[in-house]
């Protein structure tokens, strides 16, 4: 009997014109989205390769180790094809220098703003918005529609248990929606192979997990549709209710979470941080100027009462030490500024993390948020994308600058240059090196931060769990409601 009921549900779905329309729309959307995602990824890879070469060339052609400037680039991630997450919003590159802090800039959307207006629709978006809506369309009248049709009464005039009927209905609808969706999803996997997207074993596992997550999410909306259908007598009412719930959970609740967290845990804006940094910097340089002025006053006092020759001799004797002292002081100021900037950033980052955590926890009352967060965590295009890269780039910056400092010492280029003015030859600047290219073979290369599959799963496990709980609640509620359902 269970099989018969499942077959009926399947047949009922597959024979409906609603199914044909949604299947075609879903298939086109899914395949097109992944196809465009692959193109985007390939473009990003080409751009990344070119930028890497240019960065390397720039180092080679620098006028000495003191002039070396490096740029680290964010590596495209093949999983962004399915879950773009923050990929298009986070900067692609950062300058690597001892003077400036690491800051990712030039995001794909800031470079090509037109695409920011009509944002890329990834598979995660299609699942989150389109498939959930379709799941509702197929379930809003699953029970009350049968009551309206009289088929519920006719079915239960036979020896059919309500529990078995409900289970079969759920299974039939689930199979009727999920199996046809597997077809376009399999096509997307074929596309990945045809276009030779470099996917590791771990990436394939992640894709499988993402598909599983998507099914879990769609299952929730199937359960929700059944629940509301079992709680109401009229399909028009259940459709309206489901639409309101869908709008609330997919469009409103995730934003409410962010807004609530913003109010409860305020975080300094970029402008405020920059203002604080500048104020500190100004204060440090003012103190430095004063200190420098005092030092010179003291040096002058030391030379008081000396003859001109004695003064010259004293200067010649101490000039180098003085320069070193001044330079050390300047370096100290720079260090202080860098340290302060880092502290400010760390403090802001900690507060931001707190705010993010609160926002996520609040918005997780919506299954759509849970799905989105889990999908981004799996694909590693999540909220930590920026900080993860910036953190690894800072580590790289330290390694890189240390290497450059070492090279500067080895090649005796301390960053000075000489300007000569000659009445015959005019002005010339000498950087103290010949025109030969630098040997960059030993320059440390930046490697993208790696997130293990286990770590990605670990971060998304809470959302998998929440989605499962939501499903159990929906199905449990549907069961209770259907056992008490008035079939008349």
């Amino acid at each position, binding site marked *: *009997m269970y099989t*018969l*009921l499942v077959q*009926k549900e399947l*047949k*009922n779905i597959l*024979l*409906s014109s609603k199914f044909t329309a949604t299947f075609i729309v879903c298939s086109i959307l899914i395949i097109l989205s992944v196809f465009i995602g692959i193109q985007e990824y390939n473009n990003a890879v080409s751009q990344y390769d070119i930028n890497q070469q240019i960065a390397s060339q720039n180092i080679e052609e620098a006028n000495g180790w003191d002039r070396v400037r490096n740029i680290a680039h964010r590596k495209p991630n093949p999983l962004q094809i399915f879950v773009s997450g923050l990929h298009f919003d986070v900067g692609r590159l950062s300058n690597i220098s001892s003077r400036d802090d690491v800051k990712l800039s030039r995001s794909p959307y800031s470079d090509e703003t037109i695409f920011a207006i009509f944002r890329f629709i990834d598979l995660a978006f299609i699942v989150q918005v389109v498939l959930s809506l379709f799941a509702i369309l197929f379930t809003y009248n699953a029970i009350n529609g049968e009551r*309206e*049709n*009289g*088929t519920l*009464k*006719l*079915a*239960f*005039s*036979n*020896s*059919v*248990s309500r529990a078995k009927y409900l289970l079969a209905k759920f299974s039939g609808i689930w199979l009727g929606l999920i199996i046809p969706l597997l077809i376009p999803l399999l096509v997307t996997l074929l596309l990945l192979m045809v276009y030779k997207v470099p996917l590791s074993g771990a990436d394939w596992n992640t894709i499988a997990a993402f598909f599983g997550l998507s099914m879990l999410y769609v299952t929730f909306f199937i359960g929700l549709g059944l629940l509301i259908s079992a709680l109401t007598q009229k399909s028009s009412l259940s459709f309206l209710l489901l639409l309101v719930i869908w709008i609330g959970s997919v469009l409103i609740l995730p934003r409410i979470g962010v807004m609530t967290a913003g109010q409860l845990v305020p975080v300094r804006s970029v402008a405020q941080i920059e203002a604080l940094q500048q104020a500190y910097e100004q204060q440090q340089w003012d103190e430095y100027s004063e200190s420098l002025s005092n030092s010179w006053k003291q040096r002058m006092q030391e030379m008081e009462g000396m003859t001109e020759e004695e003064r010259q001799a004293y200067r010649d004797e101490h000039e180098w030490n003085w320069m070193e002292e001044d330079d050390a002081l300047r370096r100290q100021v720079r260090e202080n500024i860098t340290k302060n900037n880092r502290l400010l950033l760390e403090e802001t980052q900690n507060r931001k993390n707190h705010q993010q955590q609160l926002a996520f926890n609040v918005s997780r009352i919506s299954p759509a948020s849970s799905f989105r967060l889990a999908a981004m965590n799996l694909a590693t295009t999540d909220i930590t994308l920026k900080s993860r890269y910036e953190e690894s780039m800072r580590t790289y910056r330290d390694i890189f600058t240390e290497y450059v400092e070492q090279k500067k010492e080895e090649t005796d280029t301390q960053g000075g240059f000489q300007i000569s003015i000659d009445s015959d030859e005019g002005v010339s600047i000498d950087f103290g090196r010949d025109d030969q290219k630098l040997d960059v073979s030993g320059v440390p290369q930046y490697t993208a931060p790696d997130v293990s599959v286990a770590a990605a799963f670990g971060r998304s496990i809470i959302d998998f769990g929440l989605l499962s709980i939501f499903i159990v609640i929906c199905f449990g509620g549907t069961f209770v409601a259907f056992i008490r359902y*008035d*079939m*008349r």
Partner: protein
Amino acid sequence: MEHTESNITPAPMLEARNLTKVYEDGIKALDNLNLKVEPGKIFAMLGGNGAGKTTAINLFLDFIQPTEGMALINGINANKEPLEAKKHVAFVSENVQLYPNFTAMQNVDFFVRLGGKTHYSREQYEAALHRVGLQSSAFDKKLKDFSKGMRQKTGIAIAILKDAPAILLDEPTSGLDPKAGIEFIRLIGELRNEGKAILMSTHDIFRAKEISDHVGILNNGILMAEHSSDDLRGVDLENLYVEYMAGYMEHTESPIANALKPS
């Protein structure tokens, strides 16, 4: 009526014993209903809207729980052992809709198999559909293209194929055209002759009188009167019905009531 009655009264296939239903809002939909339908008999429940006819059928099908009393199908309490009881009953509702995306054949196949009959061949389905008067060309048409009469016929075919000893019909002729109505009465008669116990709710006084062995008149959940077809022979049932509905029978000496009084 062509059927013959034996002198031994068989055990009732359908029986309501003190069947009472009071809804949560206090409305008494059915008040102490007692009725019996033996195999090969048709019992017609007459009454206006809200008289309690459909409530009685819903109680037999366990769609609602009785406040008091019991509904028995083949001696099985339909509210205590619904799954067992429903094996012995087929049901045709007032407005048979079925699955609009399924063909008549697919609908019949599904509901008949759901009723536990899995051994039928397509030819047997076709024979049942022919029997209820459905054109062969309609067998493989989707139900969404069917008229109400055609859907009703499909519903009856399902009930026939379930081959249950008891049949519950809830306003089966409602909305049918006269020709379909006559065909339906003929078919019900055939089923009765096959030994089915049929409990039918209807507004249709004339058809009830024409086909039924017993007629019960319900008003406000109370079975006001129950008469056999013999009692009703020569009685103007329409006037009788109106008088019951108006409550005349309790207060006045109606000539119709007098005619019905046992001598």
